[in-house]
């Protein structure tokens, strides 16, 4: 079977996404498995790696981008991200405050 150039381009996009996802996941697991860092900085780094990986997934697999038809999706994702951050932040402020007061 011969592949046209556009098929190869699409395959490459998914391949790049997959390779990046595997690499980022591998680094995260390696940091924890080999205990390369102290727990606290290690957790900060794997959180950042996870954030990068979510972005890679959105870009390569879900095709969210600044281009026209995908831009509405991007707006929706960003709006939802703001709502999620507000709800997470509110939950944490209230519950951790309650926690310290109960101690």
């Amino acid at each position: 079977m011969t592949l046209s150039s556009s098929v190869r381009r699409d395959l490459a996009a998914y391949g790049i996404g997959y390779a990046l996802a595997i690499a980022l996941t591998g680094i995260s697991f390696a940091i924890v498995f080999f205990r390369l860092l102290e727990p606290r900085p290690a957790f900060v780094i794997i959180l950042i790696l996870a954030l990068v990986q979510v972005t890679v997934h959105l870009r390569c697999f879900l095709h969210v981008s600044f281009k026209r038809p995908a831009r509405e999706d991007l707006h929706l994702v960003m709006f939802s991200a703001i709502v999620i951050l507000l709800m997470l932040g509110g939950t944490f402020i209230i519950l951790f405050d309650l926690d310290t007061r109960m101690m």
Partner: protein
Amino acid sequence: MSGVSEPELRHVGLTLEGVPPLKRAQVESDVFGFWAFLMSDALIFALLFAIYATMIGRYAGGPTPGQEFKFHSAFWETALLLTSSFTYGGVSIALKHDAKRRWIVLFTAITFCLGAYFVRMECHEFTTMFHDGATPEDSGYLSSFFVLVAMHGFHVTCGLIWMLLMGAQMAIHGIDQRVKVNFVRLGLFWHFLDIVWVCIFTIVYLHGLQR
């Protein structure tokens, strides 16, 4: 009978260049509606993560994540889901370029097998934990753990059932436009679950295994 065949939806990889404007607007609004559903689902997961985060360390004398989590099972579950996302990319590309139906069936089948093995591993993990006496009622920590991870597992199971339904739709209708849009929605759902899993393996498993 093969259903709607004209105006062909050429770019099902979510980019719709070259599609007649009217059909294109319809497809875009269909897909956008599904995005709205996904984002509401993301809210549910975000709040389950919030509850989980507030419950970290609340073991109530019960088992701790360091005792219960297995590094290799978390790793292989992650590998399975990531690979299944990649193989679903094969489905999207095959649809976009009007490949033969056997390619679509093949990639969907591979994705299904990987997803099914993921669910099997997770069930095994849960039954092992139950066997060790780590049940949801032991502590606030374990309650929130089981709700969060089982919620994701439930979504994956729904995705698997959806794949079977797509197989049935393909058998009945062939690959017409509606079936293609359904495949696009399923793809969004599947890739979205992968994103949720990235958060789970980072915040739940890797963080838990550090202790």
